[in-house]
């Protein structure tokens, strides 16, 4: 019998994630109020852009990375029934990442790194910001290695057996993150750090943006993966059923892995310095990456239907009512799927080579990624936390009712926030502004949507507090939890023999490397082949 040595590791990672999440949620509330010019005393671009930068870093890099690591460690040990490959090394990665966050927090909070989480050279931040970001990424590579090694050890000990779906997805994510973070890592290590320290005088902004785009799309799949994994492996069981098809889950994970990295240039549609043909190539891949999501929608909804019918649901829609809506992770899944559907429609516009021009860098984009990331992904993080906290702490969930209310608040708040943002974007409002000193007619047309945005911000912040309060009270709960077993869903269709390609990654990694060279090789190489002019650092 193995001894699970990932409990405190998983919990430590996830606590870091949620504590910083709460801080970032507070900043978000401040931002929606500041952004609309209603309280003159609150006006401060210095504070606003420091806040936006911190909010982005905390939500996009810290909440996600730590949550993914914590979930990965815990899922790996509980599904493989095997200890962490190297526990001291895993803790080293955790502390290194945390050190990076704290190092970056100092310039962020003092307004010396107000360059937004996308860095935006030639705006220059304090070197500590870039070094902190690099440490966070390097720390997360420790996690990637652990996941890959744990799967190898398990396969060696269980020859011919099928790696559990939850682990297969987690390792897919580890590989995805390692490959995709190489883009931003090279931008930070070879361009931004030496440039901010004065070792090199100029950076080529075109190259920097191309490298960042390498990371920028697949990073959202790194965030999304735990949500999808839970939809396939935890939710069907919690709903009282089976996962419709284990094998299709693997196909979806592989498609996400292969198609999400070499398509990042759709973030550069509006940029000069990359020719249209490359953008066209990346667009075709971008449409292909919707296939695993469509597949996931089918499998997860089919799994829920199976569960609903097993629970006595009848008729075409009766099974929906029969689902356990009072189970937090099931409710989170239903709400996540709804937000994913709304957000997916918007994504088609952004992905389109021609239509994107209308919405590029407008508030539409902010609306889109809040719906998909802060909506779909983060609500699943909540659902997973409500499910795992009792298992990890050994204490009963403090209040299921509070958890359910919190999920509804988050869902409603997110719609109230993001639907008006889409409308603001179509009406031309730029994202990343701290005030609206523009043409009067234009600005007046924005007011109703901005009022809704503030209401959304208030609801979301309330929900954020409810989450942290509930998790904290659970941790300190006197009542012990009786069921500590993490129950992963079994497949409805049992696969007699899993194809080797869906039980390993070697072939797929080679395929990604080839695809990456084809789609990013020349676009990066061109900067070294033509005469370019670098840019000196500019303060904000």
């Amino acid at each position, binding site marked *: 019998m193995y001894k699970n040595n990932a409990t405190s590791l998983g919990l430590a990672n996830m606590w870091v994630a949620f504590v910083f999440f709460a801080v970032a949620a507070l900043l978000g509330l401040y931002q929606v109020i500041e952004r609309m010019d209603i309280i003159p005393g609150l006006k401060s*671009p210095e504070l606003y*852009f420091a806040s936006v930068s911190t909010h982005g870093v905390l939500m996009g890099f810290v909440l996600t990375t730590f949550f993914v690591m914590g979930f990965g460690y815990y899922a790996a040990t509980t599904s493989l029934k095997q200890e962490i490959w190297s526990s001291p090394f895993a803790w080293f990665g955790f502390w290194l990442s945390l050190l990076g966050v704290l190092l970056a927090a100092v310039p962020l909070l003092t307004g010396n790194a*107000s360059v937004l989480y996308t860095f935006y*050279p*030639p*705006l220059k931040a304090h070197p500590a910001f870039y070094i902190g970001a690099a440490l966070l990424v390097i720390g997360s590579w420790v996690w990637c290695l652990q996941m890959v090694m744990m799967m190898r050890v398990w396969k060696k000990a269980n020859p011919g057996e099928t790696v559990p779906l939850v682990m297969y997805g987690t390792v897919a994510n580890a590989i995805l993150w390692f490959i995709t973070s190489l883009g931003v890592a090279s931008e930070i290590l070879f361009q931004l750090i030496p440039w901010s320290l004065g070792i090199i005088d100029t950076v*080529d*902004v*075109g190259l920097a943006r191309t490298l960042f785009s390498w990371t920028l799309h697949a990073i959202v799949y790194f965030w999304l993966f735990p949500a999808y994994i839970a939809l396939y492996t935890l939710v069907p069981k919690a709903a009282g059923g089976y996962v*419709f*098809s284990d*094998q*299709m889950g693997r*196909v979806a994970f592989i498609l996400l892995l292969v198609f999400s990295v070499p398509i990042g240039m759709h973030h550069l549609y*509006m*940029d*000069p*310095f*990359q020719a*249209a043909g490359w*953008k*066209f190539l990346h*667009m*075709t891949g971008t*449409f292909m990456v*919707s*296939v695993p999501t*469509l*597949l996931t929608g*089918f*499998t997860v909804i*089919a799994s829920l239907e199976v569960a609903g019918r097993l629970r006595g649901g009848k008729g075409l829609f009766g099974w929906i009512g029969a689902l356990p809506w009072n189970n937090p992770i099931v409710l989170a899944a239903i709400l996540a799927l709804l937000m994913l559907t709304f957000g997916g429609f918007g994504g*088609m516009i952004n992905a389109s*080579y*021609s*239509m994107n*021009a*209308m919405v*590029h*860098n*407008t508030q539409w984009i902010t609306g889109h990624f809040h719906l998909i990331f802060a909506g779909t992904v983060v609500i699943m993080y909540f659902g997973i936390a409500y499910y795992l906290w009792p298992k990890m702490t050994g204490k009963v969930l403090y209040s299921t009712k509070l958890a359910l209310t919190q999920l509804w608040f988050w869902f409603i708040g997110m719609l109230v926030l993001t639907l008006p943002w889409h409308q603001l974007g179509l009406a*031309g*409002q*730029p994202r*990343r*502004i*701290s*005030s*609206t*000193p*523009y*043409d009067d007619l*234009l600005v007046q047309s924005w007011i109703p949507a901005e009022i809704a945005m503030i209401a959304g911000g208030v609801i979301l912040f309330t929900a954020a507090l409810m989450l942290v309060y509930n998790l904290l009270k659970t941790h300190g709960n006197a009542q012990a939890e009786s069921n500590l077993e993490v129950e992963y869903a079994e497949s409805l*269709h049992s696969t007699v023999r899993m*194809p080797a390609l869906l039980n390993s990654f070697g072939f797929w990694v080679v395929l990604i490397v080839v695809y990456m060279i084809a789609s990013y090789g020349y676009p990066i190489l061109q900067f070294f082949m033509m005469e*370019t*002019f670098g*840019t*000196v650092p*500019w303060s904000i």
Partner: protein
Amino acid sequence: MRDPLRAICDDDLERRWLWISLILAGGMGFLLGMYALSSNLHPPSNVETIDSSRLHLTEEFAEDKLGVKENPDGSLTVTMVAARYGFFPPVIEVPVNTPVKFRVASADVLHGFHVPYTNAATMVVPGYVSEVSTSFPTAGKYSFLCNEYCGLGHDNMWSRLIVVEKTAGGNE
């Protein structure tokens, strides 16, 4: 013919859905791609470098060379500089339904360039010249907004575009 997806998927219903997904994704990409290609609608993708710190010394982007120029074929070229915190020259006037090519360079950091309610949009990246071609079918007052964070004064970076009726002879 044997369904090729049978190799990865045993369930009939799910395989049907997989086909629908593939056709949906492929079809959307194909449709949008063909639409863009057939109407020659491309995102601004000019690959041309320039030394942003020496714009004032160039033939094209020196201060007195900026603005609207008419080409022999009747189309217009508008040369502009984006710099913290404004677009120069600050007022641009063009006639309706006339092909306009904007050529924009940054004198300092990253900027955005967008005329709301139109598809005149591009990033302006130091070290590179942005080029975007469009025409404006409706006369009226428009704004150029900088839609990329460029520093603490970013919100204040906007200027005026006036699209005039051709018969008005260039006056408002």
